[in-house]
C-alpha cells in the first residue's frame, strides 16, 4: 500500500517540475523582452555609468546567457539583486517577508478549513434552519465583498472607534496585529468552503453506506466523523489550491493596507517601481508554493479515497 502511494506521488512530482520550469522561463523572457529597461527612470546618470550599471547586472549579455546565469543562480537560491533597492538582494527580501506572509496565510487557511467545514456540516444537518440561511448568506457575502473594502471597514470599526485592535503595523510577536488581516484573508475561502461542504455533505448523507452505518446503531457523531467526513471533503480538497491562490492574492492587498512586511507588499512595491528582479523573484516563490500545494493536495486525495491509490 505504501509503495503504491509513493509511486503515485512520484508520478505527480514528475509533472510538477516541468511546469515550474516553464513558469520561470516564461516570466524571465517576458521580463527581458519588456519595452524599456529597469533603469529608464534614472535619467540623471551619464551613459558610461549607465553602461557600468548594465554590466554589473549582466544586462549587456545575450539573452540566452542571462537566462542560463539566472537559472544557475536560482539553483543556489540566489534571486539576484533588487533593481530598486541597490544594496539589498531579492533573496534577503524574500527571507524577511516570507515568514510573515506564510504565517498569516497558514493561519488563514487553517481557520477557513476548520470553521468552514464545521459550518457547512452544521448547515447540512439542519437544512432550512437559521444556521443554514446564515451560512448561505455568509457564502454570498464572502464572495462579493472585496478584502480591500472589508479591511478598512473593519479597521474603522474595531481599531478607530472601538480601539480594540491596532490600526496597522507589525510588531513581531504581537498577535493583535494579525487579527484583522487574518480575518479578512480567511473570510472568502471560509465562505466558499462552507458552501461546498454543505452541498457535499448533503449528498454524502444520502449514500447507501451512511444508511448502513445508522442501521448498525452508530451515533450521529461517529457516522459524520468516521463515515461521512472523508468523502464529503473531496470537493473541498479540490478547492484547496484555488483557496491558497485566493489567499495569496488577498495578501497583496491586506499586507499593503496593514503595513505588514510580507512578500505581498514587496511584490506590489516592486510592481509600482518596475523592479524586475523583485517581481520575478516573488512570482517564482508564489508559483513554487502553489505547485507544492498541488502535490500535497494530490496526496490528500489518495488518503481521502483509497480507490485512487490503485489507479496508475
Amino acid at each position, binding site marked *: 500500500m505504501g509503495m503504491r502511494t509513493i509511486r503515485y506521488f512520484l508520478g505527480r512530482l514528475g509533472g510538477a517540475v516541468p511546469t515550474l520550469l516553464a513558469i520561470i522561463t516564461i516570466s524571465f523572457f517576458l521580463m527581458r523582452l519588456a519595452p524599456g529597461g529597469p533603469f529608464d527612470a534614472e535619467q540623471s546618470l551619464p551613459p558610461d555609468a549607465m553602461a557600468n550599471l548594465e554590466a554589473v547586472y549582466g544586462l549587456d549579455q545575450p539573452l540566452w546567457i542571462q537566462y542560463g546565469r539566472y537559472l544557475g543562480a536560482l539553483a543556489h537560491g540566489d534571486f539576484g539583486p533588487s533593481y530598486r533597492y541597490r544594496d539589498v538582494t531579492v533573496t534577503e527580501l524574500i527571507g524577511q517577508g516570507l515568514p510573515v506572509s506564510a504565517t498569516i496565510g497558514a493561519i488563514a487557511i487553517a481557520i477557513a478549513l476548520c470553521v468552514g467545514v464545521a459550518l457547512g456540516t452544521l448547515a447540512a444537518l439542519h437544512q432550512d434552519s437559521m444556521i443554514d440561511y446564515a451560512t448561505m448568506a455568509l457564502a454570498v457575502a464572502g464572495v462579493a465583498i472585496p478584502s480591500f473594502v472589508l479591511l478598512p471597514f473593519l479597521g474603522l470599526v474595531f481599531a478607530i472607534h472601538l480601539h480594540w485592535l491596532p490600526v496597522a503595523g507589525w510588531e513581531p510577536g504581537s498577535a493583535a496585529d494579525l487579527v484583522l488581516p487574518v480575518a479578512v484573508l480567511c473570510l472568502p475561502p471560509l465562505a466558499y468552503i462552507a458552501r461546498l461542504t454543505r452541498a457535499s455533505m448533503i449528498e454524502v448523507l444520502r*449514500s*447507501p*453506506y451512511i*444508511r*448502513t*452505518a*445508522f*442501521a*448498525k*446503531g*452508530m*451515533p*450521529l457523531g*461517529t457516522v459524520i466523523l*468516521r*463515515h461521512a467526513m*472523508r*468523502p464529503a471533503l473531496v470537493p473541498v480538497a479540490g478547492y484547496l489550491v484555488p483557496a491558497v491562490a485566493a489567499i495569496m492574492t488577498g495578501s497583496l492587498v491586506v499586507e499593503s493596507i496593514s503595513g505588514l512586511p510580507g512578500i505581498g507588499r514587496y511584490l506590489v512595491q516592486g510592481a509600482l517601481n518596475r523592479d524586475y528582479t523583485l517581481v520575478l523573484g516573488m512570482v517564482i516563490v508564489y508559483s513554487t508554493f502553489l505547485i507544492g500545494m498541488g502535490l500535497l493536495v494530490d496526496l490528500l486525495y489518495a488518503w*481521502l*479515497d*483509497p*480507490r485512487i491509490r490503485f489507479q496508475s
Partner: protein
Amino acid sequence: MAPVLATPALEIEGLNVDFLRGTRATAAVRDVSLSVALGECLAIVGESGSGKSQIFLAVMDLLAGNARASGSVRFFGHELLSAPRSALDAVRGSKLTMVFQDPLSALTPHLKIGVQMAEVLVRHRGQSWREAEAAALAMLSRVRISEPERRLRQYPHELSGGMRQRVLIGMSLLCEPDLLIADEPTTALDVTVQAQVLELLRSMRLESRMGIVLISHDFGLVAGLADRIIVLYAGRIVESASAAQLFARPRHPYTAALMQCAPALTGIHQERMPTLPGQPPDPGIRVDGCAFAPRCSNATARCRLDRPMLQSIGAGAQLACHHPMPA
C-alpha cells in the same frame, strides 16, 4: 426447522408511511399490521414499489427525510416509532439488524472491512478494538469468507459482490441479534452466489433462534426459507398465510399470478423480475376499490368500488379479496 417460539419479537400495528413532496402526500404503506416471532422466518413478497422495503425502513427509522411514519411498531414490547434517538441506537445494529441489497454501495468505501465490522462491537459491547477485530475475524470465517485475515485489512472495492454481501450479513450477526431483516439480499448478485447466500441464511437460522424477515420480489427465493409469507400490493397486505398453505393454494389473484411468473420454484431465482400485464398503481393517486382490480382476471364492478378489507380466513391466514381463487 427451528422451533417457533411464542414471544413476538416484532409487532407492527396499523403502520402508514407517506412521502411528502411539497403539498402532495404519497402513500407508500397503508395500514400494515404484522408480527414476527423469535425463531420464525417471515417473507414479505411484492413487486418493486409495493412498499415492502419502506415498512422495515420505518421500523429501523431509516426513512428518507421527506417520509412520515405513523402507527405502532413494538420490538419486544418497546415502542420504536416515537423512541428517542439513543434508545433506537442501542437496539439498531445489535438486537435488531438490517441487511440491504447492492453490497457495493452499502459499505463505506474508505474504511477497511475490519474497522467497519469491529466498530459494531466496540459501540454495542464496549469491547476494545483488538477484541472486536478478533471477533470480526471469527465472524468472517463463520460466513465462509476465504482468507479472512487478509480481508479484514482490505477495502470494500477489493472484494467481490458475494463476499461483500457476506460481510454485510456477518456485520449484522456480530451482536447476536434477535431479528435480522434482509432486504432483497441476493438481487445484486449473480446466480451461483445467490444460492450460497441463501444457504448461509439457512444455516444461520438453524444455529440460533434468531428471527428473520426476508423481503423479496421473487417467490422462488423464499420458498426454501420462509415459515410464513405476506404478500403486499400497492402498500397494503393482500394475503398472508403459512408458506406451505400459500404455495399449495394461493387465494388472492395477485399471489397466484405472481407465483406463475416465477420460474420453477427450486430456490434459485431468475434474473428478471416477474412480469404481469399492466402496471402497479401510481401511489400518489387515491383509488376507490381494490388497487389490483385493473389487472385482475377475477375483478367485478364491486371490486372497483368497494375495497376489500383484510380478513382472517382461518388457520392464521388473512385475505383481502372479494373474489378469491378457490380454496
